[in-house]
């Protein structure tokens, strides 16, 4: 097998690590504090990733069919049937796409940071952490062992801790990084439990082995569901899904480039990547067919995936509404990220990891652009993050303005932009999911409609809050004249990343199409999904030939051009393809409508200043506004619940004490009095003299024995040994006699 992908992947991963080691020890002594070293290391990684992408993924019609493997034994525990832990690398289409995303965003963030962080304290340390962060994420991508993934997963967590708390002298930053770390531990506990279940049942951590075990029915369906949910818990915390999303907005305490890196490519993407990678596992067991779901292509009836879809959908709408009421521009973007992650997770949940991945890809580009753009704004405004103090900045920051606007259009799902296509992929899948279940159950299957509904409404909210942000920052009159007068466009190192990302945000639609952007945009708007779908179709993800053929033909993955599903395709896929056809047009129209509605509403309220009376105290939306400003009280609940629980426990203990212990004590007291009375009588009448004699004996004996209690530890040792010797002698004599 061609080992080039493996070698390149290892090199891509190793370069940032080397850069980190050099930077952390010698960075201070290098020219420019060594910022060029991690930047160029990641840049070289980007070049190699792109080479891999173009030769391996786009080189073949459906990408690499056979993933490249390489492994090295790391630990082998036990003698007869050893439990082997391998150091494993697997490169398939999915890893290569992720490699490109991570190295691209990371490289641009590095570049941006050379301008943004200029003159900051611990400048060299910042770049060292960035390199380590990139390394951890790359390691997480290229490995094919769940255990290795977990290790890198934790490393990513550590790096985010270091970077969020980069300004650790600020109390809020110190608290935020602690919060991020601890919240992630909650999910990781579940993840680790799932890992242990896998280790117990499968006896290996390797992805192919895990998928094989599912295929061969080594799992009981119940345990498989439980393990899947446990694994998903890891993604809930890492990808900031409800209710563990609380750390992500607080993570805004870190420097802005770090926010871009965390939100676009590394930390939060890790969770989505993990559930995409584990998709065959999460899809579970198809009870009807008596086979694993990935053999029958039926991804639509798994309980685990349904839970994932619900969590994702709920997070999408939940966070989107909160973002409406935020004034800190970074907080708006943070909640926007949480919401968009909800889309990705829901996409996986409704049975389309390809759609989820595609949204991850496009979102990484425009969200990185938005965050870096906000960094540029914040720098121009001298570290002011409140949008109420901005306004009219489009004349002062022309490049930032244009790029920010383009990324916003992409995020809002406006047609002709990449965001629309990926978002629509997710939504169509969700709608088809409902159609499929409607058909299956014969009823309305309303609970299966919820993910779609959530995300559709969230789409309107997304457009609304993003345009609220853009209007607030760039249009209208300057609200802080002094800051406005001193604002100036950022240096070239910061605007170039913005332009690159904005360009990708626009043409991201066509970038994955073989042969470049299509001539007829609307005809081709599904092409990228087909390619991303093809990226999933390597044998690492789909071991069944029939499913793979269906996948490659595009039938399983939403190609409108495919009218006929291959004959060999499993029934579930044929069924779903039908549902998908029904879903296509309604979703596109609805999603576009929602987006336009949101934008129009934002203009109506913030540009023309209408409708303010509804949110004033006493207005019909006021209660909701209060809830939004308080973030739906999730943080408060997290703070209050442990306290309330402790109080409740204390009351419970007190009650037990009062009812049970007290009555026992009282009862014992009464019993003792009765006994005492009886004993007193007997004592008085019968054994008075004898008792007194015994008492005196005991007293005298006690006086003797007391002397042994010297408090010298050595005496106690001596006595212990002496006692043991006596016991020993007795035993010896006893055994010899018998």
């Amino acid at each position, binding site marked *: 097998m061609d080992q080039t992908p493996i070698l390149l992947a290892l090199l891509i991963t190793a370069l940032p690590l080397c850069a980190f080691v050099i930077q952390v020890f010698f960075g201070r002594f290098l020219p420019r504090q060594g910022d060029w070293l991690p930047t160029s290391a990641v840049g070289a990684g980007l070049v190699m990733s792109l080479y891999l992408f173009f030769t391996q993924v786009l080189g073949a019609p459906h990408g690499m069919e056979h993933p490249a493997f390489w492994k090295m034994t790391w630990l*082998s*525990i*036990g*003698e007869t049937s050893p439990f082997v832990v391998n150091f494993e690398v697997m490169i398939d289409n999915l890893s290569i796409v992720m490699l490109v995303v991570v190295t691209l965003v990371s490289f641009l963030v590095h570049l941006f940071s050379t301008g943004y962080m200029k003159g900051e304290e611990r400048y060299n340390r910042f770049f060292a952490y960035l390199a380590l962060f990139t390394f951890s994420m790359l390691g997480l991508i290229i490995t094919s062992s769940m255990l290795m993934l977990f290790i890198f997963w934790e490393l990513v967590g550590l790096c985010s801790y270091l970077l969020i708390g980069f300004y650790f002298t600020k109390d809020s930053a110190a608290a935020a990084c602690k919060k991020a770390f601890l919240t992630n531990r909650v999910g990781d506990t579940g993840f680790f439990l799932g890992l242990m279940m896998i280790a117990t049942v499968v006896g290996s951590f390797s992805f192919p082995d895990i998928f094989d075990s599912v295929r061969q029915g080594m799992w009981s369906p119940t345990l498989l569901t439980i393990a899947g949910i446990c694994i998903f818990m890891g993604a809930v915390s890492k990808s900031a899904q409800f209710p563990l999303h609380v750390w992500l907005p607080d993570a805004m305490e870190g420097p802005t480039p770090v926010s871009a890196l965390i939100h676009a490519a590394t930390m939060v993407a890790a969770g989505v990547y993990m559930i995409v990678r584990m998709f065959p596992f999460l899809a579970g067991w198809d009870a009807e067919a008596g086979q694993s779901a990935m053999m029958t292509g039926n991804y639509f009836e798994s309980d685990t995936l349904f839970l994932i879809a619900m969590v994702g959908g709920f997070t999408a709408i939940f966070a989107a509404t909160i973002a409406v009421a935020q004034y800190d521009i970074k907080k708006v973007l943070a909640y926007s990220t949480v919401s968009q992650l909800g889309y990705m997770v829901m996409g996986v949940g409704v049975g389309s990891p390809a759609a989820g991945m595609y949204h991850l890809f496009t979102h990484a580009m425009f969200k990185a652009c938005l965050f870096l753009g906000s960094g540029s704004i914040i720098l121009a405004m001298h570290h002011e993050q409140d949008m109420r103090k901005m306004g009219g900045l489009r004349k002062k920051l022309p490049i930032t303005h244009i790029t920010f606007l383009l990324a916003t259009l992409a995020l809002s799902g406006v047609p002709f932009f990449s965001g629309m296509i990926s978002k629509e992929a997710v939504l169509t899948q969700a709608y088809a999911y409902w159609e499929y279940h409607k058909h299956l159950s014969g009823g309305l299957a309303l609970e299966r409609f919820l993910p779609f509904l959530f995300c559709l409404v969230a789409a309107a909210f997304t457009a609304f809050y993003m345009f609220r942000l853009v209007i607030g920052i760039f249009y209208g009159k300057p609200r802080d004249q002094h800051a406005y007068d001193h604002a100036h466009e950022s240096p070239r190192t910061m605007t170039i990343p913005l332009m690159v990302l904005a360009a990708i945000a626009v043409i991201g639609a066509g970038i994955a199409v073989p042969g470049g952007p299509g001539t007829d945009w609307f005809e081709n708007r599904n092409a990228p999904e087909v390619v991303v779908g093809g990226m999933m179709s390597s044998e690492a993800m789909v071991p069944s030939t029939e499913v793979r053929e269906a996948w490659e033909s595009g039938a399983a993955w939403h190609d409108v051009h495919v009218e006929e599903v291959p004959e060999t395709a499993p029934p579930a896929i044929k069924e779903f393809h039908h549902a998908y056809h029904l879903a296509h047009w309604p979703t596109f129209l609805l999603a576009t409508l929602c987006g336009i509605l949101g934008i129009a509403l934002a203009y109506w309220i913030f540009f023309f200043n209408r409708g303010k009376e509804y949110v004033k105290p006493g207005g019909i939306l006021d209660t909701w506004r209060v809830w939004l400003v308080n973030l739906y009280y999730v943080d408060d609940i997290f703070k209050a619940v442990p306290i309330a629980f402790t109080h409740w426990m204390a009351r419970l203990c007190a009650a037990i004490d009062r009812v049970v212990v007290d009555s026992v004590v009282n009862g014992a007291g009464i019993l003792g009095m009765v006994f005492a009375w009886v004993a007193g009588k007997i004592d008085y009448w019968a054994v008075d003299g004898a008792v007194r004699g015994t008492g005196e004996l005991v007293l005298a004996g006690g006086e003797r024995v007391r002397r042994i209690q010297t408090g010298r530890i050595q005496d106690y040792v*001596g006595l212990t*040994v002496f006692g043991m*010797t006596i016991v020993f*002698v007795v035993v*010896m004599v006893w055994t010899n006699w018998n």
Partner: protein
Amino acid sequence: MSAAGRGREGEWALSFHAIIFWALAAMTIVPAIGIVVSKNIVHMAFWLLGTLLGVAGLYLHMEADFLGMTQVFVYIGGINVLLLFGIMLTNREPLYVRAAVKRPAIASAVLLGVVVAVGLIQSFGATEWHTVKDAVAPGLADASAKAVVNGDGTAATLGTYLLSDYILPFEIVSILLLVVLVGAAYIARRDPEGGSA
């Protein structure tokens, strides 16, 4: 090789083996007695050095080469030096301790010691131990002996044991050492506000 020849050679090896054992036993016991009777704590530490070396020799004599080396490194190189440091840091005045406790206490301790020693030796002698062979000379059935004769040493086998059958205790002990490291550093640290010493 004839039976007689082997016998004679065996006898010679046997006596040599025995002589070394007695030498090592003396090397272990005599310094130990020195520890008991010594009045100077530094002398005690140096006597302890002798005993530890003797024990290391006994380990080697039992074909436990890795253990012998570990004994030298850890006990003599680590623990004994640590003890010497402790002595230097805690003795205000003379590096010399009085015979410590009162005479009756000493007498009872010695008595107890003698009883224990005699009792143990007596019972050891009285018990029929399950022994694989009357191993009077190094035999090749012995796993560690084989390793030593082959020149591999026991380290490889012990390493395999530690990372397979004994992986859990091994990991626990690693954590214990970490805890001790932190704990000892914390306890021994002089309290900056306490102002003592």
